[in-house]
């Protein structure tokens, strides 16, 4: 009597598209919340050396509270209580600086429990159900550190909502049901076969008899609730499986070492081969292990560190590693999201293009450009498509396709919109923020705003630089700002949207500044020269290593694992990114874990 109703809608929307070949594609789309405003407890340790200690001291108000709070355009890098961490870092800096730590392996390296990140979750769901499930932004964005430290109510509710809706849609018609089960639903043996295959795939290892029995019970209960229908049983299995801890978390129970293990590692344990397979695949692909890794696990080959590194190399050289490298640089190293940049002309769409530019850039450097750390800051090329080029006003690209280009005046990561727009204010540049972000993210310095990050009201009678200089002149400001401002000023040749500019409020811009708090402290005429200094900085390289450690090992690994860090810094001596990433799989932290129950 009424018109056909629109399909059920939740805030996580499913769209079924028939690709004509009879294969059903379920697209799982939701409105993604902003990536900023979530506190991260990541705080890279201050760089070694007396320098950072000196900063803390002279900043005075610095160390205690660093409540920078959430800024648009950036995932929050601070929160309350960071003062404590900073304080510890500040104290420890000197100690960590020198090579005085003993690596006698008294305690096994930590192994925090990893929860799947958003990209990992999506890849894992696709792995269980097949490529025809397309999941996009189904869950809230989180920092990597959050994945090893806790989980919020909202995220648990989101897991529930996604599992519920996906299970419903996956069993809503015969064709999809058969695709999901992998066999003819009416056949007697099909449900059990489906359960075994689904649980094994979801748990990323062979299922135990108890686990299979558990899920047979889930199936039967679901079928009963659905009036005996097989579809209802499958729906229950899917819904429970996608919320199970063995799916959402990379649970490790570990195994004892061989009797002839290195005496240094007495009392330690190691991941089981399947657990090692997951360590490798989630680090390098944000995804569950592929069949080759699973075979290497099943045969026990992954117990050999040599096999581990071989597989690591295979994974890194595979195209599936590229999104991970992009994600590392954008979300862990720089932690910028231009899609929420303060300048309103940088819309979410433009911000996405900027992310693509930087993503393509770091991918090019890493996989086609020699994988050289220095190149991240000094490479002459970048990437454009027509719309982004039009936005920047540099006319170097047309059409939708992305091309590698060279643009006058721009070189390296920090002359790209993703960094510049995310570290600006709505209507002016924000040099102190840019300076602070460079020092914190790239040099791992602790720079505090004393609890707030005030912004000057725009003043058309002078340049932003002049205004900032005047405002930060007083002695209790200058201690910190004399280190932050020179760095930030080098970017004054770019406006709040990341476009090139030669004037500010009608006055010529002055981009002279300096790199501070580093082994390459020295003057820089502009952002290009600043980045040349960063590219040459050993402190910057060490900081980069710390970021990879956080990314790979979670939480406070960069401060905890001094032995592994030393080995990684050595591997990164030449600045080769590929070497560094592969070296991540050779450390004690990666190869070992505490014995069970610790």
């Amino acid at each position: 009597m009424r018109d056909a109703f629109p399909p059920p809608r939740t805030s996580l929307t499913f769209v079924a598209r028939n690709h004509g070949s009879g294969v059903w594609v379920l697209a799982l789309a939701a409105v993604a919340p902003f990536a900023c405003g979530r506190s991260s407890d990541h705080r890279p340790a201050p760089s070694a050396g007396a320098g950072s200690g000196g900063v803390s001291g002279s900043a005075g108000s610095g160390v205690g509270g660093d409540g920078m709070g959430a800024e648009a355009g950036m995932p929050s890098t601070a929160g309350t209580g960071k003062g404590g961490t900073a304080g510890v870092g500040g104290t420890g800096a000197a100690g960590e600086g020198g090579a005085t730590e003993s690596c006698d392996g008294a305690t096994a390296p930590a192994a925090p429990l990893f929860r799947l990140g958003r990209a990992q979750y999506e890849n894992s769901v696709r792995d269980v159900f097949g490529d025809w499930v397309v999941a996009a932004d189904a869950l809230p964005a989180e920092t990597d550190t959050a994945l090893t430290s806790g989980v919020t109510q909202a995220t648990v509710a989101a897991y529930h909502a996604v599992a519920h809706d996906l299970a419903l849609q996956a069993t809503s018609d015969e064709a999809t049901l058969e695709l999901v089960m992998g066999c003819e639903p009416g056949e007697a043996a099909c449900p059990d076969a489906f359960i075994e295959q689904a649980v094994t795939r979801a748990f990323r290892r062979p299922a135990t008899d108890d686990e299979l029995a558990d899920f047979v019970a889930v199936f039967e209960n679901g079928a009963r609730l659905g009036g005996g229908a097989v579809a209802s049983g499958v729906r229950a299995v899917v819904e429970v499986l996608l919320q199970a801890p063995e799916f959402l978390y990379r649970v490790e129970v570990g195994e004892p070492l061989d009797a002839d293990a290195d005496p240094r590692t007495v009392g330690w344990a190691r991941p089981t081969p399947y657990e090692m397979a997951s360590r490798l695949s989630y680090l390098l692909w944000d995804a569950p292990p592929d069949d080759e890794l699973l075979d290497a696990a099943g045969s026990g080959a992954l117990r050999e560190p040599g096999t581990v590194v071989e597989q690591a190399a295979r994974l890194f050289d595979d195209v599936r590693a590229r999104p991970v490298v992009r994600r590392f640089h954008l979300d862990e190293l720089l932690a910028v999201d231009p899609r929420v940049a303060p300048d309103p002309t940088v819309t979410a769409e433009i911000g996405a293009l900027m992310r693509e530019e930087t993503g393509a850039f770091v991918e090019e450097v890493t996989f086609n450009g020699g994988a050289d750390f220095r190149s991240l800051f000094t490479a002459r090329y970048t990437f454009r498509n027509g719309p982004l080029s039009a936005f920047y006003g540099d006319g170097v690209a047309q059409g939708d396709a992305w091309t590698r280009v060279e643009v006058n005046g721009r070189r390296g990561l920090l002359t790209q919109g993703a960094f510049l727009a995310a570290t600006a204010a709505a209507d002016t540049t924000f040099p102190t923020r840019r300076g602070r972000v460079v020092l914190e993210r790239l040099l791992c310095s602790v720079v505090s705003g004393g609890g707030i990050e005030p912004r000057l009201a725009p003043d058309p009678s002078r340049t932003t630089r002049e205004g900032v200089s005047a405002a930060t002149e007083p002695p209790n400001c200058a201690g910190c700002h004399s280190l932050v401002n020179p760095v930030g000023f080098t970017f004054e040749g770019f406006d709040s949207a990341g476009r090139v500019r030669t004037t500010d409020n009608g006055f010529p811009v002055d981009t002279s500044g300096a790199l501070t708090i580093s082994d390459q402290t020295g003057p820089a005429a502009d952002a290009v020269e600043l980045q040349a200094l960063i590219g040459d900085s050993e402190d910057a390289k060490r900081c980069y290593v710390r970021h990879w450690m956080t990314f790979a090992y979670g939480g406070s690994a960069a401060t905890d694992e001094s032995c592994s860090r030393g080995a990684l810094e050595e591997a990164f001596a030449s600045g080769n990114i590929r070497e560094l990433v592969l070296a991540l799989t050779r450390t004690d932290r990666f190869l070992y874990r505490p014995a069970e129950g610790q």
Partner: protein
Amino acid sequence: MRSVKPFRLSRRAVLRGAGTVAIALPWLEIMGEPRVSRAQGAPARRFVTMYQPGGSVLESWVPLSTEPDFLGSTILSALSAVRDHVLVLHGVDMKSALGEQNQAGMVALLTGTVQGTAGTFAKGPSLDQVLAKIAESPPPIPTLELAVRWGTGKAKGAVSPIDILNFADSPGFAPIAPRLDPVAIWNDLFGEMPQDAGTAWDRSMLDAVVGRYTSLSARLGAADRARLDEHLTHLRALEQELAAVSCVPPELIDTSDYDPAAGLNSADDGSIRDVPTDSAIPKVGRLMTEMLVLALACDRTNVATLQFVDSAAQYTLPWLDLNDTHACYMNDCGYRVAECTTICSWYAGEFAHLVQRMSEIDMGGHSLLDESVVFYGSHLQNVATHMKQSMPFVLAGHGGGLVPGRALTFDHASHNDLLSAIANLFGDARTTFGDAMYASAPLVL
């Protein structure tokens, strides 16, 4: 075989009460229009209209000057139990109700447009249809129109300006016929909900999930156990929220004594009676009310109208020992104040019941009424003169920051401005509604 799955327990209902909401919810982002900022924050989400025939009895509606209580009068005292949830409006005139004396009131009530020529319909959309389009993510049923004992008298069970309140928000503003058959309505709203609808399925699934965390947690080291325990805490909170959400289909009582199509068998003068159907009005009214409320709670819709009869009012009220027609007591037999007061008091009591039910539905930390605006009224005020000044209007609910628990007195305010004020509660920033000649600025509620 229906092509669409019924909309089950709402994810929104779960996420809303979860504290930190990470996923964008509909209704919080209005496309294009600037948000009206209300003291209390979020815009209203649900709009309900309840219509009763026969206007009111003004002298029993407005409290005496000696009565301090804003519900003082005979009729409004029926709202005592829900006094904190109702906002009584005095001094609002339906200035756009120009046309046939009854029809114009029906046409204008939700549209604020002039009928003009008798027999014609509205020249604009009704407010409920407009509000239904605000939702960014429309529910399965955009609007729900339910009617009890409909189409009496001259309308003879057909769509007519005598008996239609809702007009489409599309060119032509087509009249929308209400649904009449309680059994068909029940089947449509709730019939295809799987046996495991709502809490039974969710409880069972979450039980299984919780079990996995509990048993795995016990086998892990302290640090990992703490992590899974934290997750478990959130799961348990989720369980509680789901248990609290009240999406359970209402019981389909026996209405076999009620003929929803009784209007087809009408006489212009009400001389054809259907006493069994009339006698069933209270229980069918309650059933319709319950279905409406649960349709909201289960997120089947966000906008609903409950219409009792029509402007012809050719029905009897045996349960009130009134065996002549309502039309007789209003007009046909001369204006009978006592009987009309009794009838209006009864309807006010049904309105109170609707409000009460909405206040009892837990949507996860707040009630259905908290996020709703209910509009109660009739198509005229005075049945003898057909006057449409000082309309018997009551609002209920707390949606959009509406503050009830009082009365407001206006000085010949236009009800067009009431309609726009209601729209503002839903985050729609318009300043006029309906015929511009009778609209100036939204009433301050």
